[in-house]
């Protein structure tokens, strides 16, 4: 791949070895070559503790690669510092479970990135926060701390917090984890709107990468799927291709193991 093509990718991983956040000596993925183009929607599947979260955090620049090169919007994530803050903020990250700050209220959590990056007072950030609270149906929980709010709503608050700076790339770690059926449907619908261009982002489509341990809810003809299994990252292709895949772990992620056994 030419350097020009390399830089035009939203995410580009070349021969990357990803390590665990908890233990930098433990590799979770090796020799990863992966590129994400602008406007794509990737779903990375893997069993629990397979290292999906660590790979996602690596792609967000939160964990440096033990080997290889990771570029996001053409910037090497290892050299991302204060000077490249604007580039850094083009990426939003939503952790599994939200990772909201427990000492701040839901409204303060959502406002924090905006207030910090733009140096705004609480009053100055109120309007922007209100828009998101309304959009995410979080108004009744605005003044509660995350521990007093159900997990369903915490996930929404985490997504709102990631969107307040209007990123171009959104990485979500298991966004449906612990959500009830209604909230799962809401989340899937909302992410789909983001992908196609949500009015909150001025209709601009966003690049999405989702890590999951269940492919089924993400079924869509134009989404791309990948698998992380036993430290090996494999791009599987579109839904029609993975439907015919014969790898046991892929079938497991599609909850078709019984079918295989039969």
């Amino acid at each position, binding site marked *: 791949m030419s350097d020009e093509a390399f830089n035009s990718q939203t995410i580009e991983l070349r021969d990357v070895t990803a390590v665990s956040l908890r233990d930098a000596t433990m590799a979770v993925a090796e020799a990863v070559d992966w590129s994400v183009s602008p406007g794509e929607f990737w779903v990375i599947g893997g069993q629990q503790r397979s290292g999906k979260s660590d790979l996602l955090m690596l792609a967000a620049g939160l964990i440096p690669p033990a080997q290889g090169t990771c570029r996001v919007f053409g910037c090497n994530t290892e050299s991302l*510092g204060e000077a490249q803050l604007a580039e850094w903020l083009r990426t939003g990250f939503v952790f599994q479970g939200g990772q909201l700050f*427990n000492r701040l209220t839901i409204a303060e959590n959502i406002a924090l990135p905006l207030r910090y990056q733009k140096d705004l007072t609480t009053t100055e950030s109120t309007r922007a926060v209100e828009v998101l609270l309304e959009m995410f149906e979080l108004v009744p929980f605005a003044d509660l701390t995350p521990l007093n709010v159900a997990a369903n709503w915490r996930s929404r608050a985490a997504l709102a917090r990631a969107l307040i700076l209007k990123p171009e790339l959104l990485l979500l770690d298991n966004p449906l984890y612990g959500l009830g059926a209604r909230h799962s449907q809401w989340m899937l619908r909302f992410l789909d709107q983001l992908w196609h261009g949500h009015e909150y982002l001025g209709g601009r489509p966003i690049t999405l990468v989702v890590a999951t341990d269940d492919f089924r809810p993400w079924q869509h003809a134009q989404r791309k799927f990948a698998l992380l299994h036993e430290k090996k990252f494999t791009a599987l292709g579109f839904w029609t291709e993975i439907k015919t895949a014969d790898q046991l772990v892929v079938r497991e992620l599609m909850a078709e193991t019984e079918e295989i056994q039969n």
Partner: protein
Amino acid sequence: MRGNLAKTFELTNTQVLRHSPLPRSYTDYIGRKLFLFLLTMQGLGAFALITLGVILQKNSVAKNVIRPRIRQEIVRSGVALLPMFGFVALALGFLVIGQTVSTLAKVGAVEYLGSTMVIVIVRELGPLLAAMLVLTRVGTANVIELGTSRALGEVEALEALGIDPMHYLIVPRVIGMALGIFSLTVYLIIGALASGYLFAFLQGAPMRLDDYYRQIVDALSWLDFALLALKTIAFGFFIAIVTCYHGLAQPLRLDDVSRVAVRAVSQGVIICVLLDALFIVLYVFS
């Protein structure tokens, strides 16, 4: 972002030593303890320097977020402790005067009461006691809060939002604690000196209030004020550094937090005593 925090902890990883099997001899044991001590000192030094760097570099970054947080920390490390310090000041004045008045009266040296108060309370007990009280009340809370934040992934969440955890979590605590201890020490000293006279008066010491006041003023020099400010700010800075370092450093699991809190308080006490010794040397040679 990830750089500042990662730099500190990549420098010193004491986990290998802490989790390795028990040494076979006392000399090995002492050697291991020494290595641990040196690595911890290196880590603390690096953390302190990086914190100072962030304070200076990001002085004007996100003022509307950081300044209210500094105010919160000043309230937590200072204002909120005032009632307890009022009680301690009363007790300290009584303790020192109770022990000294009768002795000084016996030898006819009541005129030294003021200077005794200055030496004991202004130079030594006041700052050290204030530091110990803040360490146990706020320092432990720091370790637990930051350890929990670390274990729950809040530090990574800050980094993901482009917020430097050193700037958001550490700088307000360091500044708040330094100013908090300084202010509390001043209140503690004033309260102890006042209660000292009250108890001297109640014990019938032959001394008027203006004599007591004059004795104290005569015993104080500019160096006392300068070193008192330096000492208390240094106590606050290092207590915050030790507690924040241990809170953020290694505990990635919730069950580690209480063990690390104990270690942080022990090291905080040692550092305060060492700093106090350093200031005694400064007094002696000034």
